[in-house]
């Protein structure tokens, strides 16, 4: 192989790599990006069934319903609109009614959002009491399982 040919080969190789990278990026930004909405931004008439999206808001009070130990129903809301969600799996640690959450999944036919992932958010502004003596009164599990 002549020197010139080797250089040409290298340049071609580089160009091919860059081309592949650009194509990958273009393809993936179209296919593998999910849109993010708040409940009130979701227009009921424009729902695309089975398209993966994310919804951010917080868990509506008194909406949480445990169907079994691993399947749950709740509503996610932004105080203007609220959307029923069903989820199978393990809920994140910070998941509580009134707390912020982002859920990922898709709508099925009957207007229920099927979540595949639930991400909970800790609201930094909400700081409950932290006075030492009160701790004794706030037992959480109360050993009630035994």
């Amino acid at each position, binding site marked *: 192989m002549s020197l010139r040919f080797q250089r040409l080969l290298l340049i071609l190789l580089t160009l091919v790599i860059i081309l592949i990278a650009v194509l990958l990026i273009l393809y993936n930004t179209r296919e593998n990006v999910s849109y*993010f909405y*708040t409940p009130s931004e979701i227009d009921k008439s424009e729902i695309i069934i089975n398209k993966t999206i994310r919804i*951010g*808001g*917080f868990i509506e009070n008194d909406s949480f319903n445990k169907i079994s130990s691993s399947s749950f129903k709740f509503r996610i809301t*932004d*105080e203007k609109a609220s959307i029923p969600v069903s989820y199978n799996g393990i809920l994140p640690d910070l998941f509580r009614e*009134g*707390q*912020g959450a*982002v859920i990922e999944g898709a709508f099925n036919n009957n207007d229920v959002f099927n979540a595949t992932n639930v991400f909970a*958010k800790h*609201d930094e*502004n*909400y*700081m*409950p*009491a*932290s*006075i030492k*003596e*009160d701790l004794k*009164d*706030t037992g959480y599990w109360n050993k009630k399982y035994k």
Partner: protein
Amino acid sequence: MNRIFILTPLIVLLIICIFSLVYLLSGKDPNKPPSALLNKDVPIFESSSLYNEKDIIKTKDIKNKKTLINFFASWCSPCKIEHPLFFEIGKKYPELYLLGFNHKDPTSDAKKYLKDDGNPYDFVGVDSDGLIALEFGVFGLPETYLINEDGKIIYKFMGPITMDILKNEIEPLL
């Protein structure tokens, strides 16, 4: 040609900075839900008056009127600073219900404090064990809450309120 290559990072930098700046200035807050406490119902509480143990105030007693709830104590020096402001609020907005909660104070100290500095509150509830403060999520004194007619918390302030805060943040809500 060479120059263009070297300029690229600067151009990319400029683009990134402009977008980030626009984003920051637009005040967008990525998917942050409203504070868990704001716009929520007032926690359920029950407290007796500092001056009369039989005089009891409950959550439903403050329904249908705007209420300003203030947690204070005689041992809390910043409370002393904001204290005179409550007289002004009371004078300016007579229809506003001023509810004070005396936090973890011996009754005698609380009474003496309100005698020396005056009592601006329509009702002074006793919270000697701090349980009401716990329900409200108070973490330090003083702390002030504004409740609307529907019994929702519409404003919360931690620390002593000042003239500025009163003018710019509380009064527009009244």
